[in-house]
């Protein structure tokens, strides 16, 4: 299955840019998961936990994000967060 290109950007730097299986994003109107081939979509995000899945059942990273927005286009998912810190498992 094709992978999703995921980018996490904060004002200070480009934090992540990698190929993943799925990302679960904390949107203001509820969490949503983005897989490869998702329809173009844009949402404001709230402060919360963003989960990156490297496989169907494996969470490879959990990142605390604060405010921002997420954009899905044909190239993949871009999350623009005001601040982001990885949660150590």
């Amino acid at each position, binding site marked *: 299955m094709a992978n999703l290109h995921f980018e996490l950007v904060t*004002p200070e730097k*480009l934090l992540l840019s990698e190929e993943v299986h799925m990302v679960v994003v904390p949107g*203001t109107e509820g969490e949503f998961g983005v897989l490869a081939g998702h329809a*173009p979509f*844009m*949402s*404001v995000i709230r402060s919360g936990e963003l989960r990156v899945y490297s496989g169907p059942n494996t969470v490879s990273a959990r990142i605390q994000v604060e405010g921002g*927005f997420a954009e899905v286009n044909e190239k993949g998912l871009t999350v623009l967060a*005001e601040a982001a810190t990885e949660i150590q498992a």
Partner: protein
Amino acid sequence: MPSLKSLKVRITSVKSTQKITKAMKMVAAAKLRRAQQAAEAGRPYAERLSTVMSSLASKVTIGPSSPKLLAGTGSDQRHLLVVATSERGLAGAFNSNIVKLARKTADELIAQGKDVKFYLIGKKGRAVIARLYPGKIVHQVDQSHIKNVAFADAHQVSEDLIRRFDAGEFDIAHLFFAKFQSALAQIPTELQIIPVPLAVNAAPATGGAEASVEYEPDEEAILTELLPRNVAVQLFRAMLENAASEQGSRMTAMDNATRNAGDMINRLTIQYNRTRQAAITTELVEIISGAEAL
């Protein structure tokens, strides 16, 4: 003709000045590298945000109900000039160039009969502006404790600005900073930050695909959310560019100072040697003529 001793003292003093300017130049070069990296790292965010902003703006029609940050207050009488300078001097013409541009705009606006107020970031512009436009400075952000500009700092400033805007203190805000081009060239730049200027004729970059984008919540709500963030990001970018420009400007200025000190040392050394030789010659002549006289 200065005495040998005073020449020697001067040479030592210029030499120690040269040491200081050389050290400052090297420190500025190291800091410049870091500031430049920070400025570059911040670019993707700003770029993506502006793409999103313009694609959103093309979908929202500006009406009386649209947010004030976008549509403005409907008047352009009161202007706020946000002037970002550095906290430290000895950076060549860096600060005076920014202030000069701000003054030009201020004078033009005053000539048109507008009200002009100043909001200063960094302390180096204060003296000139306070002298030329007494009582016009509404606030000064102290950045002397900040070593590396963080987004939180810019966010704080932008919140303060938006609070003042909502309170009706001004209608239009302009931002002045030096855009970093290279270590040799920093361009003083003016940018309107409030109301958010939107490229109305933004090119349909993504073409037809854009039409089917889903928004959650709707476009207008997202836009309202993004506008304050955009102000913060613009400020942040300006601060980063300014930091890089300051170091670049200081590096060039200190490089010049070091070179000038070198030239001066050469000149003084030549003068010193000539004086010494003249003294020796005089002494010899005296001895010889004294011996002849016997």
